[in-house]
């Protein structure tokens, strides 16, 4: 096993443990995360397998395929986070507004 493989597999395991310990989510989440982590470890150990899949999809190298998937994934994450920020901002605005109205003063 090369240095980069050890580093990546260590990272995947660390994220997996952190996620379980931190969020204690439903079983379904755990299974999905488990499958993703296992797949990640598999492809780190046998990187040539990604090239086989890539070729089937019309991409030359496995690394390129991963790169494209990563871009899509990050755009998805940004969109999700942005939607959440907007929801939070709108709730915060409501609270601030209500307080401002409740504490309105008449200056003399």
């Amino acid at each position, binding site marked *: 096993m090369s240095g980069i493989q050890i580093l990546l597999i260590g990272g995947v395991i660390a994220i997996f443990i952190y996620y379980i310990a931190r969020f204690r989510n439903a079983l379904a989440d755990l299974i999905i995360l488990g499958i993703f982590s296992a797949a990640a470890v598999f492809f780190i150990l046998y990187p040539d397998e990604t090239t086989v899949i890539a070729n089937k999809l019309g991409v030359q190298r496995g690394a390129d395929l991963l790169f494209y998937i990563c871009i899509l994934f990050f755009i998805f994450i940004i969109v999700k986070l942005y939607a959440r920020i907007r929801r939070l901002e709108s709730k*915060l605005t409501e609270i601030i*507004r209500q307080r*401002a109205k409740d504490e309105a003063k008449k200056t003399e």
Partner: protein
Amino acid sequence: MPAAINHKDVFVVVPAYNEQTVIRDVVSELVDIGYTVVVVDDGSKTSPEPFLKGLPVYFLQHEINMGQGAALQTGIEFSREHHASYIITFDGDGQHNADDIKKLLEPLQTNEADFTLGSRFLKGAAHNMSGARKQTLQIAKFINYIFTGMRLTDAYNGMRALNPKASALVNIRENGMAHATELLTFIKKNKLRFQEVPVNIRYTEYSKNKGLTVWNGFRIFFDILLNKIFG
């Protein structure tokens, strides 16, 4: 001529963010005419409250800075809850002229419109605007046109008047500058009758520094776009 109006029933909403150097002059002018003034401080670094001493106005304060759109909505809701007959929005940086309010009110009083919008480019209005600022406003007008399909002579003029029908419906959700476009969408969606009215703009060194920049234009564009996507 429209019927006489009780100035006390006209609520003028003045959003203020770090306007402490000019806010007293702006508010005094309005109080002298007899309007009910609602100052909404949008989380200024220095509270404008001490500068309003001796002036009978309602003072509301956002604890943190939420944006001009948010401040306007707070002021409008407050005025509505205090049974305002008409609600005016009026920038806190001193570029508007209090005497123009009666011109904005006329079409509402005669029941020709539900919503009036100030325009610095209509015949009868005066402004001393630089070329660069004119260009920025052209871009803003174009943005408004793309998103609302409404062709107005002015965009992002902070002076507006609403009758009770319009103010009951208004619900600004764009906290930032994009609220101006959102209000047009709102007029269109609710099929409100609107008119543009010539108003004078005073460009002082102070208000120029606070005004719309090209960068703001881009921000507004993306705010509206994202609002369309995320609702």
